[in-house]
């Protein structure tokens, strides 16, 4: 029975996290000796759909009904469950993101399917059950969990897998489902997309600032660093609470969990709730005036110093490096 993967459509492109999910799905399919089928919703160039084959998809089911232009958990769940029915898939893969949190649980209820999220490793398949490694306690621990339902849903952590790319092309099949008014429950009245910014959960480099930066205007130097490194910006909770930065940038136990290759903590003390959301990062750099700040215990590289002197010097060095 096939492995189905939901590939996000981010306004006409497929984000890296979704490509990672496709690649992951193809690994699971190989283990099961079956095919990988991607589901994509909304307008997208045929060439992009075919290129999902590069990441391991054999087939792409493309649902492009105009009614699906707005993301509604009810209509999108109808579509994915239609794809499950038509393909007989019994493992469904998502990237662990907004879509998986909206569609995954609804599918779980509809199909009596167990769901594992924040998944970090490939599954061990043993008969009808599947065992998989995920993070729990905001990255403070791993858990090996077994999903025992007939249909299984897996949401994969972004940045946890690097796809091997081939030149295979996927077969693209247009698909549709009859949607009625009862499949829609909400109205989207405004969309505000910051398309020129790197998405925080997908970013490989994150530049994060804390209360030590003293004022919203001081983020200019962090933005400059982020621009040069193709990085996303982030912040600690009090910074978002004070309105210096939007809440969507707040990382930590009650905010977003990130696992970039490189995390810069600038003027951040390193409270346990903050570390919870960032300790999956490969390299952590701390810049802090206080040599006793707990962030240095979590850091790989540290500078004990004033951010207002250190960051401009780093920016100059990055400029030189970039040539």
């Amino acid at each position: 029975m096939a492995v189905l993967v939901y590939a996000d459509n981010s306004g006409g492109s497929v984000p890296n996290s979704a490509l990672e999910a496709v690649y992951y799905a193809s690994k699971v399919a190989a283990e099961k000796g079956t095919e990988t089928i991607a589901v994509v919703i909304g307008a997208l160039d045929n060439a992009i759909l075919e290129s999902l084959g590069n990441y391991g998809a054999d087939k792409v089911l493309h649902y492009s009904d105009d009614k699906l232009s707005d993301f509604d958990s009810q209509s999108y769940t109808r579509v994915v469950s239609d794809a499950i029915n038509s393909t007989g898939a019994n493992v469904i893969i998502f990237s662990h993101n907004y879509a998986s949190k909206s569609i995954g649980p609804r599918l779980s209820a509809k199909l009596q399917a167990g769901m594992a999220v924040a998944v970090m490793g490939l599954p061990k398949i043993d008969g009808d059950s599947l065992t998989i490694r995920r993070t729990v306690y905001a990255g403070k621990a791993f858990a090996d969990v077994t999903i025992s339902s007939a249909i299984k849903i897996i949401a994969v952590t972004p940045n946890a897998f690097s796809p091997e790319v081939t030149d295979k092309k996927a077969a693209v099949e247009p698909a549709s489902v009859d949607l009625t008014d009862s499949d829609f429950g909400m109205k989207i009245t405004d969309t505000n997309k910051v398309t020129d910014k790197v998405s925080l959960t997908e970013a490989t480099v994150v530049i994060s600032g804390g209360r030590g930066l003293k004022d919203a205007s001081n983020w200019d130097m962090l933005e400059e660093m982020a621009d040069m490194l193709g990085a996303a910006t982030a912040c600690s909770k009090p910074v978002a609470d004070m309105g210096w930065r939007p809440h969507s940038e707040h990382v930590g136990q009650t905010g977003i969990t990130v696992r970039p290759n490189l995390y810069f903590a600038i003027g951040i003390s390193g409270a346990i709730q903050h570390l919870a959301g960032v300790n999956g990062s490969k390299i952590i750099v701390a810049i802090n005036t206080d040599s006793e700040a707990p962030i240095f215990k979590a850091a790989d590289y540290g500078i004990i110093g004033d951010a207002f002197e250190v960051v401009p010097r780093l920016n100059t060095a990055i400029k030189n490096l970039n040539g």
Partner: protein
Amino acid sequence: MNVLICIAKVPDTTTKITFTENNTQFNTDRVQWVINPLDEFALTRAIEIKEALGGTITVMNVGLADTEPLIRKAFAIGADEGIRINAEPTDCFFVASQIAHYAKEGNYDYIFAGRETTDYEGAQVGGIVAEFMGIPFIAGVPKFDYDGTTATMEREIEGGKEVITVNPPFLASIQEGVTEPRIPSMRGIMSARTKPLTVVEPVEAGSFVGVNSYELPPAKGDCKYVDAENSEELINLLHNEAKVI
């Protein structure tokens, strides 16, 4: 206006995470238990709206008797009634099946859950309840308003946000940003003792995801310090040694 808030019991966020019984059980020794912070944000926002529009706020928890102090804490913050479904929460599907069963009886205008709990982080309970009830579900809401007829809220999508309107009944899972938690007043604490807490028995439901064992991540190596006077060297190390830029 009738509102239901799903609340979970989690270890305080400062808890040192360790395991026992050959790494198969979470070590609860000396753990301080709290209402899941995102659930508390949801509860507090519902109370603010109730203060403007009137109504009744019910909190619901799937747990054994040891969760009752947290239900009383929710009363002290401002919830009016509580329902405890007397069962050990095993996985998201089981918990959500219980909540959906009893929520159907309640005629709630809207239901809040936290986006996820800070321990198991399943991020599923709200969505499963919504599907069982056949109502709209909005995941991850950092801003919420309700005028008595229509709710207007923001939700975060990859790389941006959307403003959404939806009419009751619906379920929203709440995240940081909706409001700040409140410290219960003396009056709230006094009245918490006498507010009605109903205990009901669980219904038959499946449980599909089980933890076999836990593992702590390997300890971090030492921090390598670069002198502030020589900050440029850090970029060199990140480029040539760590190879991350």
